[in-house]
């Protein structure tokens, strides 16, 4: 897979995002959903990191924070630049535009993430237009080249079509092309394959990997599917209610899950081996919105290992179990 030279590209420190809920007559919020709270993650140049969790655990919010579609409530996201690390929450105007050249995003829904009134060419060339890269004919060449690279061949037959004339897989390829057209360093992919048919899913995943090598892209891969994460990522972080509960190298994490939540997630993955047996770990209930959550461990309510210690103490700090494998649990 991608080479690792150990340089940190993105460094996320104590990131939190609170959404106000509840409103008095004069519009003052009285409680908050802690969508992301005290979130820490380092992403190195060239690696693919996966973020796995149930829907509603704050994965997408994290992705939007990193791409600055949302402003963080507290904490900072440091992006490595030529002038050293820069906090992206403080970017304004021109710096913001430069930042957009480096960080792109692929959206979950290929149907809704494209303007139905714009042709494929206009959609893919939009970043070029906005950033003012190249002349019109340059842009056309670049777009056509890239479309062929993402297997939309021949490009000329796609350039002036509209999104609704394409299939889901084709559309997601267009979305990938749009994200890569200005050669970003870092791409946040928010469940890019979850809306696709299984038959085209692998194709898109392979394409993304090839492109990562070809364009030197670092991925943050957001998904709820452990199998997809395993296929795509060097490292996987498991998220629960706005916090990373466990993070480690892909194979290490999948073979040696330490956090009860990770174990539960893994036990839900079907294994194509009839002789394989394991102890299914049961967790009860469903995920709830963390509205003003108590300071104790976020997983406390559903955890099979929960005890008095967990109840009386704050959310467990993250500790390194084996090299590069961190868990946030008192019982691990």
């Amino acid at each position, binding site marked *: 897979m991608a080479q690792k030279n150990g340089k940190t590209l993105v460094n996320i420190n104590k990131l939190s995002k609170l*959404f106000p809920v509840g409103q008095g*007559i004069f519009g003052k919020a009285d409680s908050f959903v802690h969508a992301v709270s005290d979130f820490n993650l380092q992403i190195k140049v060239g690696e693919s990191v996966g973020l796995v969790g149930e829907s509603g655990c704050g994965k997408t919010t994290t992705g939007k924070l990193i791409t600055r579609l949302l402003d963080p409530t507290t904490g900072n996201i440091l992006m490595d630049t030529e002038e050293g690390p820069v906090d992206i929450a403080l970017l304004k105007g021109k710096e913001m535009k430069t930042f957009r050249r480096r960080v792109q995003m692929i959206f979950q829904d290929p149907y809704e993430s494209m303007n139905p009134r714009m042709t494929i060419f206009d959609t893919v060339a939009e970043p070029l237009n906005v950033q003012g890269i190249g002349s019109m004919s340059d842009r056309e060449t670049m777009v056509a080249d890239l479309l062929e690279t993402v297997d939309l061949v021949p490009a000329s037959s796609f350039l002036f079509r509209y999104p609704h004339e394409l299939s889901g897989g084709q559309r997601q390829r267009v979305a990938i092309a749009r994200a890569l057209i200005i050669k970003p360093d870092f791409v946040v992919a928010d469940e890019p394959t979850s809306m696709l048919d299984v038959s085209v899913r692998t194709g898109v995943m392979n394409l993304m990997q090839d492109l990562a090598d070809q364009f030197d892209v670092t991925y943050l891969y957001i998904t709820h599917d452990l199998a997809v994460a395993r296929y795509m990522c060097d490292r996987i972080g498991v998220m629960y209610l706005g916090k990373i509960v466990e993070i480690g190298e892909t194979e290490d994490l999948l073979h040696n899950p330490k956090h009860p939540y990770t174990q539960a997630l893994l036990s839900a993955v079907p294994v194509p081996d009839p002789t394989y047996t394991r102890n299914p770990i049961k967790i009860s209930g469903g995920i709830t919105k963390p509205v003003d959550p108590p300071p104790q461990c976020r997983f406390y309510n559903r955890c099979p290992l929960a005890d008095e210690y967990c109840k009386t103490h704050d959310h467990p700090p993250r500790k390194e179990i084996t090299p590069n494998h961190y868990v946030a649990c008192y019982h691990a």
Partner: protein
Amino acid sequence: MTRYLIRQFTISLIKLFVFLTFMFFFIQIVMPGDFVDQFAMGCDAACREEMRVQLGLDLPLWNRYFHWLGQVVRLDFGESMFGEPILDIFKRVIPPTLLVFVIGTVLAFMIGLWLGKVTSWRERGIGSRLITLGGLVLFTSFPPWLTYLVTYLVTKGGVFQVVGGRGGLRGPNFTGLDRLLWQKVELSPSEVIITMMICVVISALFLFLLKFIYERLTKSKVPTLMFVFLIGLWAVSGWQMWGIDDLAFDIMTIAYIPMVTYILLAFGEFMLIMQASMRDVKNSEYVQIARAKGLPESTVRDQHAARNALLPVLSRLVISLPYLITGVVIIESSVGWPGLGTNLWNALYWQNMPVVMNTLLIVGIISLGARLIIDVIAAYLDPRIRYQDFQTNHT
């Protein structure tokens, strides 16, 4: 929900205040002259000045504004420039308007919904097309012309008189009534109308209750047409019990003209909105499933499609409500129906500001109040809106 209502209520009050303030200054600044200029044509300057001092028109505009505002806050309507208490004017003028507006709107709404439902279900039929076109023509027709047409068709020419005009607007009165009949009683037409309305409302509520209980018990449906007919019958017998049946019928002989005109003008809009809404619902999956279950077509239409199509119609009603009110104003003044609209027209002509402002106050309260009621009904009908309110209220 109560929190939401309180919030909406507060905002509505602020809106009403802004609206009235704007109208106050707009009318007084834009319209030339004042009441005295209109009223005291023959007086000389000194006489006019005296009259102004008497009426308080010599004060600066902002002073008059705060005076009026003080009155509104004290819920004191004050007096018309002619010296009649405005409350008396309203007692005389509001019942006729309510009679036309409330009964007309309810009937137009029901007719419009029903026609919209039926025509959109069989879109391609000739009957549907004719009804759609007919509704469109009525909806876009010129109201004074429509009133003339209705009067003409019903009375074979005759009764219709032009009310407006360059020279003067006629004072509101009930010219079409039978004088002999009314001489015998102490009641004024407006009082009779109030009693009539009370009868209708009570019988409607009571029959709704009965219908509800009956449908719960027997699990069958009462045909809407029969239900409306029953309400009418009950109301009429109510009039009889009250002993005002002669008077009521006499009023109805002139009231049906503005009412019919209003219904003809208004039902088209409801029908069109309902059609659009039904078209969206018609091909949805739950309607297909209802069909696949083998339910009769009319059940699918009424129980499954129409019920869901109703919600967008209600939300559109909020936007078209003020237009309906203006429609009533226009119809009243073209047919000479002595209601709020004609009164407003006259007051505007005389620049009788206290009457104008208080009429606008009433109109504002009606339109905002109706809006609030529609919001509540929509929330009651649609669990999603209830949820959304919760959401917008709590995010």
